[in-house]
């Protein structure tokens, strides 16, 4: 069962997140092992179905995970297939490299403001790419070129996300 099927939804990037949450809560009440009656088999089935529900919710409520999952359904696995999303322009990769170098420098000199500024900038850029990927995915199922476009955009998004994780890490270290 696909993550969308778990929720009885057609595969689509555009979701009503409030409705998704409501449905998640209803399904939890229905499926959770704490509510299972009967024998071991019934409980095991409840654990499996709740696991599938929780995993589906985790993916669908997050725009990046949702977009990557839609790509997966279209046959492009950015996470596990090394070749998927390759062919990013060298300028982009150079840019990522220098961003990381700048971040390292800021970390070493404990320039927290600089780290935050870079974080905010990359976040905005990542959002713009994600929006573009979303509109590419809206037409994707029938259109191979659109899938490839979305894959290229999301591959970039993933680079930015990894960068932002590092920013988070630095901010957390600064708290300590």
């Amino acid at each position, binding site marked *: 069962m696909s993550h969308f099927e778990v929720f009885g939804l057609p595969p689509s990037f555009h979701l009503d997140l409030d409705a998704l949450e409501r449905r998640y*809560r209803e399904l*939890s*009440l229905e499926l*959770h*092992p*704490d*509510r*299972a*009656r*009967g*024998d*071991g088999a*019934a*409980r*095991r*089935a409840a*654990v*499996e179905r*709740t*696991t599938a529900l*929780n*995993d589906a*919710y*985790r993916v669908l409520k997050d725009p990046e995970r949702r977009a990557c999952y839609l790509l997966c359904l279209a046959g492009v696995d950015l996470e*596990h297939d090394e070749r998927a999303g390759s062919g990013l322009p060298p300028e982009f990769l150079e840019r990522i490299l220098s961003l990381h170098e700048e971040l390292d420098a800021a970390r070493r000199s404990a320039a927290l403001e600089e780290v935050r500024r870079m974080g905010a900038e990359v976040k905005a850029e990542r959002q713009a790419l994600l929006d573009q990927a979303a509109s590419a995915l809206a037409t994707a199922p029938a259109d191979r070129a659109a899938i490839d476009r979305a894959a290229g955009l999301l591959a970039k998004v993933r680079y930015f996300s990894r960068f932002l994780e590092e920013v*988070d890490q630095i901010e*957390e270290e600064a*708290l*300590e």
Partner: protein
Amino acid sequence: MSGGLLQIHDPLKPKGSAVGIDLGTTNSLVAAVIQGKPRCLPADEGGEPLLPSVVHYANDGSVLVGRRASALSFAHPTDTIRSVKRFMGKSAGDPETQKLGCYRFAESKSVVRFEVSGGQPVTPIEVSGEILRALKRQAEAYFSGRVEQAVITVPAYFDDAQRQATKDAGRLAGLTVLRLLNEPTAAALAYGLDKGSQGTFAVYDLGGGTFDISILKLLDGIFEVKSTGGDSALGGDDFDRVIAHRVLEALGIGHPSPAQVAEALSAARRAKEELSACELAEVSVSGRARAVARVEFEAWIAPLIQKTGVACKRALKDAGLRPAEIDGVVLVGGSTRVPAVRRFVSSLFGREALRDIDPDQVVALGAAAQADLLTSQERQDEVLLLDVLPLSLGVETMGGLVERLIPRNSTIPTAAAQVFTTFQDGQTGMDVHVVQGEREMVEDCRSLARFRLTGIPPMSAGLGRVEVKYQVDADGILSVAAKELTTGASQEITVRPSHGLSDEEIEQMLLDSIENAEGDVKRRLLREQQVEAERVLKDAGKQLRENADLLSDGERAAIDTAFARLEEERRSATEHLRIQEAIRALDEACRPFVERVMNRALRNAVAGHSVEEY
């Protein structure tokens, strides 16, 4: 993948009463729902609901728990174990064993063991088991009936090893553990059910040895944990240690005896409690006193309190919330009585915290409510708890890096699957190392388990593919299953906990505690090898029957000889090493044969598929 490997309790028929137990660092409590309301039961002499989590081992082998044990801690500091919770699931070399304390630790490669009077060294699981057994007895006396089922609370921030250890302690005490419930969740449950509240709450739980922060959303009967964080080695005990340390220093006692340490810690604890109400308290050791002012105490513990703030901010961020979006803050744990702690929490969240329910009792009351929910049919539809995994789960990859499989704060039960590919020609096995934690390097995370995937059919590098599935159940405990994707053969994996006791060790402790039998290690090893030999003989016999055509007469004769020798040793050997050696010899004799069998299985699996499919 089959669900056959999930470790799940069978549904439990109601038998006797189900209780909630707060197995605390300093005090433990037992509670039950009586006439629709959770109540704490008498747990120690004189009907006290608080049972000090102190266990004394006497010379004659008898065991005391609670106040009577506590009273003996000066005279017998090393035989009286306090705050054992801090050692749960810890390895012998853990920093916790290096802190100011008065215990003697037995030499051990794996788990912590305390040297005590009257018998063998005891593990933290056994010590906790004694506390649980005492609570069980008290509850049985209260109900005049059997109590066999319990919900036991654990700090939300406990990792897999600590949870497993707690569950094992319950088993040792003869309890069926219905659920390990996170302490802040239990507290929220007690508040939510009591007040019928709705909204988003932060539960700040500072106990004797652990700190937890949880952000929960209460809506329409669902208690959904949004995020959780904390420090499983930070609590009121550390406040005591700071005081004791400073006072011993001030009194010029550079190398205190175990008795002096025990005295200083106890006096420090009293002083800390006094300082919640007074400006000045006195700590005396060996007849010499040192005054401690509240401002001084607050300056000493300020770094510890600051540490809790980091965890709070992180939990808010993980929940995607700002402090202003929190509808209420609940204080739990005896250490929240310290005024400096309360001031800190108020300023952090910008509001006064709730303390309507006794912070010592609230966790046990919530656990009792959950035990009731899980056992009584009619209340099932009212409330559901959705809890999370406290720490990210990952595996070691090349270069000692961690590949994250399940991020922290994922709602449980949850699972992740991962495909491993062989990297050498003919590779038949693969090592997997599971860790828990947020850091990038394996060495900075908690090692949970190591296991070896075996029985991969020999193939060219990159062709062998094994899918490993990690399942985290509703207790936050991990189990693992694997499947070879080329042949479809599924495999059971014995996950060997990196710090902890094996199932065999637990079984043995159960036997020991039930029959008080002499722990005959030799007999056990022999029995284990006999069982292993039976398994090997059965497997080999089956393969020989089914694939006899793959062997030449000479090879067959060699295998038959080794086979007969193992049969003989299994029956008559009195030394486990002899059986072990015979198993090894049979394995050796079978090796070329096993490879041929694997190849045949692989060919059979591939047959029926066209080449294009690969």
